[in-house]
């Protein structure tokens, strides 16, 4: 068998979630009234007529934070396998290795902090 | 083996090189010129032990110096000279002071660099003629390109860019495969040392391709007929000294390569290709002559005549008999002297008329008798007038050709005739044409006398008493001719079909 029970369960529950979410939507689509015309489709801007497109460029700082997340999040990911092993590993060695990893993460934070990445809003030159 | 207490050849190679760097301590154009002249004379003096110590009867390499250079690959610093290269070395060294003298007033810009190139050039050329290690040979072979390129590209005529590029590309393109061939010899023969490789016998298939790779490099350098197009361009654009070195020394390298490598290393293939080479040579002789006949630019005439003369040399080489080889080597020497002299003469007149067109230099016999004396002498020598040096070489080649095959000899005759025709045509115009352009040009001065007299003396000396030269070259040539005859029999052509071999290896690529 290619799949384990766990994988099967994951699929099953995801499908369940899909149905749970989709069901009411479909129900709603069936029984709800369908009005047309007028300004029903106009994007909502508190009653004003929309000005320009919505898909504009916006503050670059958001991107920067996304970048930061990518940089850190995956590094943290490495700690999960480590965490399971950690209490069972012996010696100071394990601690030193983990401390090394964490201090590099910390250094990264210091670096960004010093470089003013956390200052909002920030002009990127 | 060492006859003299110190390394003669090394000093000949490296003295000009070191002296060239010494140039940078001089200021002022004249100081530079005088310094270079002194250096060139010292270089001449340094070559004295060569004359004193050279054993005439020996076919072996003399003045040998041998040190390991790159142990792992067996690359050595291996110098030596024998009857074949001895004359070339002497020629190279002798040409240097003449070059310095003949560009005394001709070169006025970047004088220091010019002389640097000259000295560098000399060092590399001596190296080429004395190197007995393939890699060392290649090193010198390529090293001489750069100064020559600069000589043409910096101090050349209006078309210098085109000419220098053409020169550089042609010659380097030829030598690219030379390197491959050298490597192949190393792998097949186990050493880079030429004397040891000469002892070995290679399979015919190998010889076939090796011959082609070598011959391409040398044929471009000679230049043989279809590869000759760089030569007129380079000659015409080069400054006088550049032309002289080009004609006297550089062209000899190609034929020297044939003698030194193709014949002893790939004898069977040489014999296989000999008819083709002879045909190309004859084509070159006739073609060079005919084209020269139609030129109005004096330098072009001499340049195309070089193609013809060098055709005699290659022809002599591939006749595979003693006369032919002697003639070829003689012709190499003579062409160096005569053509060098002619180019110097052109330089002399160019400094006065600032034109190389024959129509701008008419009727000088009356006003510049000294000049015309030299011109006449060299012109006669050029087409092999009896009593001049070229006659000896040409007649030997003729004899060899008739010995080889009367038809070959017969085909050479029109070549010789045409040579007389174009040389006489141009000389007549120069001497007795209607003087239209003469403008109080002075006759040649003392400096010019000096550097013209030297080749003139040799023209007559060799023409009248060639015996000494024969003694120098005979032992080596006899050995060479003997080797070729015996070794070419050792492998049979029919056993291997080189084209098929190449096709098979091609198929292996695609697989």
């Amino acid at each position: 068998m290619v799949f384990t029970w766990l994988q099967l369960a994951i699929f099953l529950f995801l499908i369940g979630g899909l149905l749970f979410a989709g069901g009411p939507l479909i129900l709603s689509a069936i029984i709800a009234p369908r009005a047309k015309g007028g300004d029903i489709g106009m994007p909502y801007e508190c009653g004003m007529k929309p000005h320009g497109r919505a898909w504009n460029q916006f503050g670059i700082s958001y991107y920067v934070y996304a970048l930061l997340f990518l940089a850190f999040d995956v590094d943290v990911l490495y700690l999960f396998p480590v965490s399971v092993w950690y209490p069972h590993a012996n010696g100071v060695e394990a601690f030193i290795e983990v401390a090394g990893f964490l201090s590099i993460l910390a250094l990264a934070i210091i670096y960004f902090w010093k470089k003013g990445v956390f200052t909002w809003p920030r002009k990127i030159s | 083996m060492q006859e003299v207490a110190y390394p003669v050849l090394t000093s000949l190679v490296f003295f000009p090189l070191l002296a060239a760097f010494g140039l940078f301590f001089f200021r002022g154009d004249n100081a530079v010129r005088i310094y270079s002249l002194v250096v060139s004379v010292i270089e001449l003096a340094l070559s004295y032990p060569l004359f004193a110590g050279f054993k005439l009867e020996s076919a072996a390499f003399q003045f040998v110096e041998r040190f390991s250079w790159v142990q792992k690959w067996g690359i050595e610093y291996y110098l030596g000279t024998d009857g074949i290269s001895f004359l070339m070395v002497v020629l190279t060294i002798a040409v240097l002071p003449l070059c310095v003298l003949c560009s005394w007033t001709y070169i006025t810009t970047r004088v220091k660099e010019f002389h640097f190139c000259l000295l560098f050039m000399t060092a590399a050329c001596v190296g080429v003629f004395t190197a007995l290690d393939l890699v060392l040979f290649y090193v010198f072979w390529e090293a001489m390109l750069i100064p020559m390129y600069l000589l043409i590209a910096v101090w050349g005529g209006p078309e210098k860019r085109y000419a220098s590029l053409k020169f550089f590309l042609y010659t380097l393109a030829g030598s690219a495969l030379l390197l491959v061939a050298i490597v192949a010899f190393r792998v097949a023969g186990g050493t880079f040392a030429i004397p040891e490789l000469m002892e070995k016998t290679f399979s015919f298939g190998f010889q076939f391709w090796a011959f082609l790779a070598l011959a391409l490099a040398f044929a471009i350098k000679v230049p043989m007929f279809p590869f000759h197009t760089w030569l007129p361009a380079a000659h015409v654009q080069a400054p006088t000294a550049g032309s002289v070195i080009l004609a006297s020394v550089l062209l000899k390298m190609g034929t020297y390569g044939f003698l030194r490598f193709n014949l002893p290393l790939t004898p069977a293939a040489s014999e296989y290709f000999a008819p083709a080479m002879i045909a190309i040579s004859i084509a070159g002789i006739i073609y060079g002559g005919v084209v020269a006949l139609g030129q109005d630019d004096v330098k072009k005439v001499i340049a195309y005549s070089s193609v013809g003369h060098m055709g005699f040399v290659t022809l002599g080489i591939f006749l595979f008999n003693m006369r032919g080889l002697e003639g070829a080597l003689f012709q190499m020497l003579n062409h160096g002297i005569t053509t060098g002299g002619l180019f110097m003469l052109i330089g002399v007149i160019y400094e006065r008329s600032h034109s190389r067109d024959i129509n701008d230099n008419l009727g000088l016999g009356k006003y510049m008798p000294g000049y015309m004396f030299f011109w006449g002498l060299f012109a006669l020598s050029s087409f092999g007038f009896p009593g001049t040096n070229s006659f000896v070489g040409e007649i030997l080649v003729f004899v060899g050709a008739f010995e080889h095959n009367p038809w070959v000899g017969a085909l050479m005759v029109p070549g010789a005739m045409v040579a007389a025709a174009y040389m006489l045509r141009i000389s007549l115009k120069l001497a007795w044409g209607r003087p239209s352009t003469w403008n109080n040009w002075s006759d040649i001065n003392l400096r010019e006398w000096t550097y013209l007299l030297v080749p003139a003396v040799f023209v007559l000396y060799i023409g009248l008493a060639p015996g000494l030269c024969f003694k120098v070259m005979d032992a080596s040539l006899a050995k060479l001719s003997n080797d070729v005859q015996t070794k070419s029999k050792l492998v049979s052509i029919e056993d291997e079909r080189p084209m098929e071999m190449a096709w098979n290896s091609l198929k292996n690529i695609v697989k």
Partner: protein
Amino acid sequence: MNVNPYLFLPELFQFLIIALLFVQTVGSEQMQEKVGVWLPIASAVGVLVAVVSVGQEGLVFNAAYRIDPLSQFFKAAIAVGFFVTVLNATRQPTLDKEKSSDYFLFLALSAWGLMLLASSVELITMYLALELSSYSLYAVIALRADSKGAAEAAIKYILFGAVATALALYGFSYILAGMHTTYLAELVQKTWTFEAAPMAVTGMALFLAGMFYKLALFPFHFWCPDVYEGASNETAAFVATLPKLGAVVILIRLAAMFKPGYDITTLLAVLGALSMTFGNLAALAQTDVKRILGYSSVAHAGYIMIGLVSGTPEGLAAASFYALAYVAMNLTCFWVVSRVAVDGRNLQLSDLDGLHKRAPALAFALAVGAFALVGLPPMAGFMGKLFLFSAGWNHGYNWLIIIAGINTAISIYYYLGLVRHAYTNDASDEVPMPDTSTFSYVGAAFLSILVLGLGLMPSDIFDFALQVGGIMP
């Protein structure tokens, strides 16, 4: 885990440099600008350290990291290269002042990654080290102030680099599937013919693609000229040289597995032939000096393949030697380029006009570098080529050597162009004067001597390289 720290001296020292740079870059603004003072000295010491630690041997970190003559040879080469690039980059006209410590931090990191790469004998370790060095490089390229070209070069380099990495990873997975191990020591014992292990051989070909990308071998070369042109001169000097060393050392380790006649070896040979031909032909049409050098490096990557396909220790040694020579020659050229472009612009060929008069030492160094790249004796390039040819001849790929010979002839034209402009043309007055300081001359002289010395006295270095090639896994 008892690890002898002497084994890692070069790496440790490089790490120390990185740490210092880090302190500096997060330090106050005054601190940040003082990189140029101590870094050259430190990296010179790094060269010493690397040279001293040649001869160490050991196998550590679960046999994934091997210190042997090969690695130490390349570490020393990397240290030298780093030293020269640092010197070269001390004056950077196109870099914002406050970013200079960051710049050097990235450079040092990249060099460090390459040092690690030199010692990796396990595929995952290789991958990590390679990426460590690459990422720093990607970041550095864009650091050319307000340059559109630099941004473009960086995005191209990284995007296609990522594709190459992805391909390499697919290859890695197939090697795993076919050979079940990632240790070179075990991989080398397997049979690498296509008939015996189709999956693993396919995988290896793909894995090599990642290295080819670093090396700029033919189908993975397209970034090379663009990046050289876009990046600042000083950055390009780094990008053009050191990563090649890293790629070569890995290729040498991998190539030790293949014998001539294997499909994968033939593939290498064909790519090498295409690479040199394409690189040289494309370079003929260029007028930007850095683009010329870019295409020339594509061609040189092809030459190196000759040594790798020969399947002999001599071939591998020749490849090492050639890589070293290549770095020396290219650094020489880039040194001149950086000195001539005082304002950090991209040099056109015509900008070199009259260099022999304005800065004779630079012109001479350029001539040495260019002729060495051609392979003219007595420069390093000639000896390298000779060794490659000699080692490669008669091992089944003679046609490759002949193509290389022909390519040498083609390449003359554009290298000669560099020299021609420097020596035979006269300068126009608009072009700014090159840097003729003592520093610039001493550097040029040092590099020229290096190139000439490698050409005239290659014996010792080559013998060492041979010793390196002889003890392959």
